[in-house]
């Protein structure tokens, strides 16, 4: 596959993933915060395609789940009662992107059966639904924080590179300061010095702000480098002779030179920032209960009993690997393209 086709496929895959989590309400069968205290830590519900005696494949169905009378906290299937898996069912209401209200879900089973594609957690909440909603929080926290960092870094980098002088000196010394501190420490410390108990939306926005602000230094330096060489180009000098203001020169001639480096930085930063959200929420410094995020979903695994026995709780962590892989390959593609051109 040619390299640009590979890039397109990667981008398409990543877009599809992000779209899927945006449609979390539609794709998930249950409300992510709804607890089912009677069925904590249930393993993923098996979906059957054929009745046990016949060979014919039928439409998917699930069996009823009962508690194992011999071992407490263990579940066993009771296939004398089966319930078909249906498409496009009505269920718990949700809002997509805060605009579209609906209660239509892609699939589900009718009561009293329950379909837990990824099992349940300590409070009996459907892990699959939480996985989708949590993915929305985690992935978009990473994206938005990256956008913030790149905007901040671009503004400071462009101003610093274009004007030089004391502006440049101040910005670059500031950048050194931020780069001298270990990233995770800075994140913790910054987060620490802010209110600890917030509601979900505030926590989300604060998280984005903190992660986004901490990382401005490296992109700013790289963009500044581009600007330093850009501003000496003769077409910029010529435009100044024609009466171009600083703002015009920066906008029309210098900024376009920074786009490719911004793209490469974005591909590098997004996975780092997604991971930052996961770590902060894992440690209790990010998004809190009951709102799901891949980070706080993993934090129950700090208890060894959970880690040892309930493997489905790791799924949000495993999901990070293909996401990061996608971004890593994209980043190396983009940087090859850039060095190939320059």
């Amino acid at each position, binding site marked *: 596959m040619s390299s640009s086709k590979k890039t397109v496929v990667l981008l398409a895959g990543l877009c599809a993933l992000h779209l899927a989590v945006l449609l979390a309400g539609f794709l998930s069968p249950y409300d992510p915060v709804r607890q089912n205290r009677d069925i904590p830590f249930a393993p993923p519900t098996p979906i059957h395609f054929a009745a046990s005696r016949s060979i014919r494949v039928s439409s998917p169905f699930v069996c009823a789940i009962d508690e194992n009378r011999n071992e407490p906290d263990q579940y066993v299937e009771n296939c004398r009662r089966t319930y078909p898996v249906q498409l496009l069912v009505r269920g718990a209401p949700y809002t997509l992107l805060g605009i579209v209200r609906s209660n239509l879900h892609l699939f589900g089973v009718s009561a009293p059966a329950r379909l837990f594609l990824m099992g349940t957690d300590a409070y009996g909440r459907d892990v699959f639904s939480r996985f989708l909603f949590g993915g929305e929080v985690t992935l978009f926290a990473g994206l938005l924080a990256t956008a913030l960092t790149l905007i901040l870094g671009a503004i400071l980098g462009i101003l610093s590179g274009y004007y030089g002088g004391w502006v440049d000196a101040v910005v670059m010394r500031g950048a050194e300061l931020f780069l001298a501190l270990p990233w995770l420490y800075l994140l913790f410390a910054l987060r620490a010095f802010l209110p600890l108990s917030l509601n979900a939306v505030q926590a989300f926005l604060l998280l984005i702000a903190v992660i986004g602000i901490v990382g401005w230094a490296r992109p700013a330096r790289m963009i500044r480098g581009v600007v330093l060489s850009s501003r000496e180009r003769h*077409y910029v*000098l010529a435009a100044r*002779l*024609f*009466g171009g203001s600083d703002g*015009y020169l920066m906008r029309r001639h210098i900024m*376009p030179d920074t786009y490719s480096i911004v793209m490469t930085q974005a591909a590098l930063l997004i996975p780092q920032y997604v991971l930052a959200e996961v770590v902060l929420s894992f440690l209790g410094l990010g998004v809190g209960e009951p709102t799901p995020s891949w980070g706080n979903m993993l934090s129950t695994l700090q208890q060894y009993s959970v880690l040892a026995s309930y493997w489905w709780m790791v799924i949000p962590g495993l999901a990070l690997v293909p996401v990061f892989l996608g971004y890593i390959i994209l980043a190396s593609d983009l940087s090859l393209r850039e060095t190939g051109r320059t």
Partner: protein
Amino acid sequence: MNSPSEFVLEARNLAKTYTQGKWWQKKFHCHAIENVSFALRPHETLALVGESGCGKTTLAMCLVGLETPDSGEILVEGTSLQSLGKSERASVRREIQLIFQDSAGALNPRMSAIEIVEEPLLLRGQPRAERRESAERRMEDVGISAKWKHRLPHEFSGGQRQRLAIARALTLKPKVLILDEVFEGLDLSIQGQIANLLIDLQQAHGLSYICISHNLALAAQFADTIALMDRGRIVEKGSPEEFQRRHSLPSALTASRPEAAMSAHSGA
């Protein structure tokens, strides 16, 4: 002093020194130009000749305002630039335009030909239809067909790019064009074409030229006055015939100049 002058551009005792070194180091001074004076008449071409590093480009930068001279005066049509306010100075400065040596570097590779040529008018605030029309006319003036207006710089040859740069400079109807080594890097035949174009434009638009070059022979063909620069100073000034006598340049060179040829033919 606002007296009308016979000179379109005059420089008096211009000097500029660059200093290298941080505050705790011993400084290194580079006297780029010292005590430079010249006067340019309308429709005249002055050639500034000298080796690389002798200050020609610094002088050009000072004349257009990209650098500020440490001392000395610049007068445009008799008006000293220092006596003007900031915006007046900027508008007077626009009478002097600069054509850079590197044609590819002087054009933004992402902009189309028409966007490049009309940029000065865009910055003057002209509406789109007017701009386009003026720009297209300037393109025709320099010999680039208007049907190529959407092409990007890399799709043009070096000579064509210089023409576009000249067209762009002409949109502001300047009085003086400073040509900084514009023939550099072009084939001899293309150099000839550009030289002819410049001569035609000079007659059509009443331009004055300051032609910067390290090639004395080329300058002799093209200029009315030659000023020789060495290490930041003008060491010799005179007409091409005087230079020919002093430096024994082949007379064929000066004889090939258009005016000389015409005067020879008319028997004057």
